[in-house]
């Protein structure tokens, strides 16, 4: 018997089937409704933007690993997720095609890989890239157009309401409004949320505390909570970007604090800031606080004894 081949390792000797790649695949499936709705409302340009963004995201990760002589990691599909989410954050216009490529470079190379790759980045790559693009290419990033093939310029609901124009709930819910590719259709995003919850990819804590805080504070300040929930990038951010594992707390209490903080900053920017939208900034800011939140939300371990003085 060739017993010198017996494998000896630390227990456990049984592992679940779930893998990083599998989780990323579930996120991609959850993003599909938003992608389909964006193509439906904004025509072929949406498909082109998603394709370019995804392809360049993967390309930059592969190239980085080649240059840095690291093991290829694109197989875990996280670059695909970043690519799709970044695309959903861009306006449905032609300039977004090259903007997407710049964005994925920032997201993948600068925000993710230079910090050590998946799991090591402090900021959510797509959010950081969106903020970078908003600041650097303000014109292109706010080139909102109304749904349809004609590409007529319009304003987003949040900008409209600042001017006193109202938008119908049904249009908000379905996504028949101006905005970035993926943020307009609440319906598509909620389908994605259900999938993520059903597959246990994420828990309810961050989306509920984030969205709940926005609703609550908009109500306190005499605004329409439902409008604030449906408008802008709140659902996209709360469901797909604030819930990024790497850049959010790991405990449920930490997640609630994180979501609350995101909601508070979002509503503060929306109501009192110069910008119509604050979701990306709020998530980016809260990303930076995650290590601090983690430090103060260590769960009490089973049978933990309080140290005697």
């Amino acid at each position, binding site marked *: 018997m060739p017993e010198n081949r017996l494998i000896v390792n630390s227990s456990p000797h049984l592992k679940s089937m779930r893998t990083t790649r599998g989780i990323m695949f579930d996120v991609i499936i959850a993003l599909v409704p938003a992608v389909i709705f964006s193509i439906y409302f904004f025509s072929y340009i949406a498909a082109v933007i998603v394709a370019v963004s995804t392809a360049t995201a993967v390309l930059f990760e592969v190239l980085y690993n080649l240059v840095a002589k690291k093991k290829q990691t694109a197989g875990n599909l996280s670059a695909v997720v970043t690519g799709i989410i970044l695309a959903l954050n861009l306006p449905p216009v032609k300039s977004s095609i090259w903007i997407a490529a710049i964005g994925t470079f920032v997201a993948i190379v600068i925000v993710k890989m230079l910090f050590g790759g998946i799991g090591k980045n402090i900021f959510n790559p797509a959010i950081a890239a969106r903020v970078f693009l908003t600041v650097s290419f303000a014109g292109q990033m706010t080139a909102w157009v109304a749904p349809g093939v004609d590409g007529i310029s319009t304003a987003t609901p949040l900008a409209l309401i600042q001017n006193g124009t109202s938008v119908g709930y049904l249009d908000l819910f379905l996504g028949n409004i101006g905005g970035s590719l993926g943020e307009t259709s609440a319906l598509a995003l909620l389908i994605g949320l259900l999938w993520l919850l059903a597959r246990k990819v994420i828990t309810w804590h961050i989306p509920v505390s984030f969205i709940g805080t926005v609703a609550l504070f908009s109500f306190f300040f005499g605004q329409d909570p439902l409008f604030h929930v449906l408008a802008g990038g709140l659902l996209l951010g709360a469901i797909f970007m604030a819930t990024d594992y790497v850049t959010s707390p790991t405990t449920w209490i930490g997640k609630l604090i994180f979501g609350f903080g995101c909601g508070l900053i979002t509503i503060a920017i929306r109501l009192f800031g110069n910008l119509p939208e604050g979701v990306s900034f709020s998530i980016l800011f809260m990303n930076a606080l995650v290590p601090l939140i983690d430090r103060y939300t260590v769960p009490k371990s089973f*049978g933990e004894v309080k140290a005697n003085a």
Partner: protein
Amino acid sequence: MKQKNRIKGGVKTPHYKNTAKAETKVMPAPEKVEITMLHHIGAPCLPTVGKGDQVFVGTKIGDSDKFVSAPIHSSVSGTVTEIKKRLMSNGAYVDSVVIKSDGLQTIDPAIEPPVVNTREDFIRAIRESGLVGLGGAGFPAHVKLNPPKDKKIDYLLINAAECEPYITSDYRESIENSWNVISGINIVMDFLGIENVLIGVEDNKPATVKVLNDIADTDKKITAVSLKSKYPQGAEKMLIYALTGRKVPAGGLPMDVGVIVMNVASVSFVAKYLKTGMPLVRKRLTVDGAVVREPANVDACIGTYIKDLIDFCGGFTEEPYKILMGGPMMGVAQYTVDTPILKQNNAILAFNKKQSILPEQTACIRCGNCVRACPMSLMPQQLDLLSNSGNAEGLVKYNVMSCIECGSCSYVCPAKRHLVQAIRKGKTIVKTKGSK
């Protein structure tokens, strides 16, 4: 009786209870057994026999004057051929007595049922029986059953949860020897003056609950309780919490919360021993895994080599890649099939290549699954980081010593991190740095 689910965390592992329906097969004495001098937590025994000595079934061959230890007896009749050093799984070299069997299985003439009238007699008898916790940990029973006077014990809990996949040896014990289980419980209750007994069983074994409750019917103080099938329901601290709602403090023992926990096979042995006086020399084990031809529960002599045990079960169907003592979640991988079985072994599993090679570990994505899975409410991903950076202070702060090494975190990790391994290393870092 059905208990609501109290424990936090845990994981849903597959059950693989393939051998549950098979009646235990009694394996005849092999030609040679090797009985190590360490079957328990505590001090190893010193051999009380030498090369060439004649021994019988039940002859004492090892003992110790240390408090936490338990004597060891021969499982065959025959001749001691060698006393050698054996490398144990924990890395220590321990004396090991090799006995060539004469095939007669002659019982030691000195063996007779012990005379037990008082609590002191009982504890002494239990010590002489060589009983250790048969659930796997191997804590000497006479120590466990003799708590200091200031510890008031009001609950005896019997562990029949058997939450590890594959293993069915406790299940077979409860079904085949149910009367011994109940009478063993009564004996312990009487001598220790304990009034309440709960038997914890996972709800994938309704037969155990029914059989034990049926025969315990005359005495309402013994109740078998059905617990949710969730790993690690049978871990001692989890079982105590699930059944009584009491939490053993970190670093404490069950007696600190007024509880004694015994494995179902241990308590059954107590009854058998008081009837016959035959010390612990045989053990029922589940032999299973993809490469075992005829998986079964086997009643084997302690000291039987794994190789012989597997041969008794029809041998290997193909080359084994991993041999485990115990279940897949907490079992210890063996480096050779020439390893003899121990008192507290409850399973030998042999895996094929696919089952044996674990996936490569990739970067932690901080998904938090390990945090949710940890029944002790620890943060395994944080401990992994701290252990890999050798941060003793941080490890203590994050309660590394509280880890029960159940493996739930490693099981759920999508990045396939070797979390338990890192935590074990972390415990060593804390111990060697002497930090408290």
